C-alpha cells in the first residue's frame, strides 16, 4: 500500500467506552484528511488495481493420501518462563542439599544458570562437593551468607556441565572383548576451574569463626527438631 508511515499512527479516535468512539464518521472523515487526498487526485479517492499475479502451476494430487481424514494436532505456541529464584537464595547463601549423593551437605550458592538450575560448590576442599548443578526444589536456603565477591563465575553455564557424547561403533567383536574403558578421569581443566573458584571462597570462609567446620558437617534432623518450626 502506498504512503506507509515509519511509525504506525495510534488511532485518532479515542474510545469513550469500549465500542464507542469520540468522533462521528463525518468528523473522522475530516480528521483523516480524506478530503485533502481526494482533492489532490481530482475528487476521486486513488485506487490501485491489484498487480497481475504470476500464473500458479496447478497442484498435482499426491501419490498417497490416507483413507480417512487425518486430524492435524493443534498448534502449541507455549514458551516456558524462566525459573523464578526464591528470594531467600542470593549469591553466597549457604544451602542444605536434600537429595542425591550429597544429601545433607551444606554448600555455597554461586549463581542461577539459564536452565533454572543453581550452580553450587562445596567448596571441594571443605566438604567434597564439586562445582555442581542443583535443582532449587531440593534445597533448603539458610540465612547464613558467605562473601562471594572475589569469585568469578562468568564462564560456567549449562554447556559446561553437558555429558560428553561417546561414539559407539557397531561390531560383533565389541561384545566379546572386555570393556576397555576404565573410570573416566576428570579433565585437568575442570580441576583448575574448581581450584580457581574455591581459592577466594575458602579465604572468606576462614574469616568467619566455625564456618569451615559448619560447612564440613552434614545436616540431619535430630530428635525433637520440628522442621516446620525451625528457622533456617
Amino acid at each position, binding site marked *: 500500500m502506498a504512503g506507509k508511515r515509519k511509525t504506525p499512527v495510534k488511532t485518532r479516535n479515542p474510545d469513550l467506552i469500549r465500542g464507542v468512539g469520540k468522533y462521528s464518521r463525518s468528523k473522522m472523515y475530516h480528521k483523516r484528511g480524506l478530503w485533502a487526498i481526494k482533492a489532490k487526485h481530482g475528487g476521486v479517492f486513488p485506487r490501485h488495481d491489484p498487480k497481475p499475479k504470476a500464473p500458479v502451476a496447478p497442484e498435482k494430487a499426491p501419490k498417497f493420501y490416507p483413507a480417512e481424514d487425518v486430524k492435524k494436532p493443534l498448534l502449541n505456541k507455549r514458551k516456558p518462563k524462566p525459573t523464578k529464584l526464591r528470594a531467600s537464595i542470593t549469591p553466597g547463601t*549457604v544451602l542444605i542439599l536434600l537429595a542425591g549423593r550429597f544429601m545433607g551437605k551444606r554448600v555455597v550458592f554461586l549463581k542461577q544458570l539459564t536452565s533454572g538450575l543453581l550452580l553450587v560448590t562445596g567448596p571441594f576442599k571443605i566438604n567434597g562437593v564439586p562445582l555442581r548443578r542443583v535443582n532449587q526444589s531440593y534445597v533448603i536456603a*539458610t*540465612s*547464613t551468607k558467605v562473601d562471594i565477591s572475589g569469585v568469578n563465575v562468568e564462564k560456567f553455564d549449562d554447556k559446561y556441565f553437558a555429558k560428553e557424547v561417546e561414539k559407539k561403533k557397531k561390531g560383533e567383536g565389541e561384545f566379546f572383548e572386555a570393556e576397555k574403558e576404565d573410570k573416566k578421569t576428570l579433565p585437568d581443566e575442570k580441576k583448575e576451574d574448581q581450584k580457581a573458584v574455591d581459592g577466594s571462597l575458602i579465604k572468606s570462609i576462614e574469616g568467619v569463626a*566455625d564456618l569451615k*567446620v559448619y560447612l564440613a*558437617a552434614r545436616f540431619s534432623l535430630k530428635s525433637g527438631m520440628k522442621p516446620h518450626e*525451625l*528457622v*533456617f
Partner: protein
Amino acid sequence: MPFKRYVEIGRVALVNYGKDYGKLVVIVDVVDQNRALVDAPDTVRSQMNFKRLTLTDIKIDINRVPKKKTLIDAMEKADVKNKWENSSWGRKLIVQKRRASLNDFDRFKLMLAKIKKAGIVRQELAKLKKETAA
C-alpha cells in the same frame, strides 16, 4: 492451699491464647464472671475471657479503667518490665524465644559450645575423682 494470685484491678496477666499470645496486659476492670477489661501500653483496651489470661505475681496500683497515660505511668512506677524480665518465668520465656529464633549456623555453634563445656566439666570431674581416690 489458698489462692495467691487474685483477679483484681491492676493485676498483670500474660495472654496465653489468641492474636496477642505472649503479651503482658493489665486487668483494668471486670466485665462479668468470665471476662475482664484488659489494657497494655501497646494495645487497644479490649475485653478478654479469663481463660485467655494467666495471672502473674505482679500487681500495679491503678484506679478502675485509668487513662492510657496514667496506666503507662503506673507501670513505669511499679517497674513491671524489669520485674517481669528478672522473674524466673519471664527469663524462661526469653530463653524459649531466643532458642526458637536460632539460625541453622547458630544451632551448630551451640552444639560445639555444649560439647566443649561438657569436655571441660568432665576433665574437672576426673581431676576431683583422682584426688579423692588418692
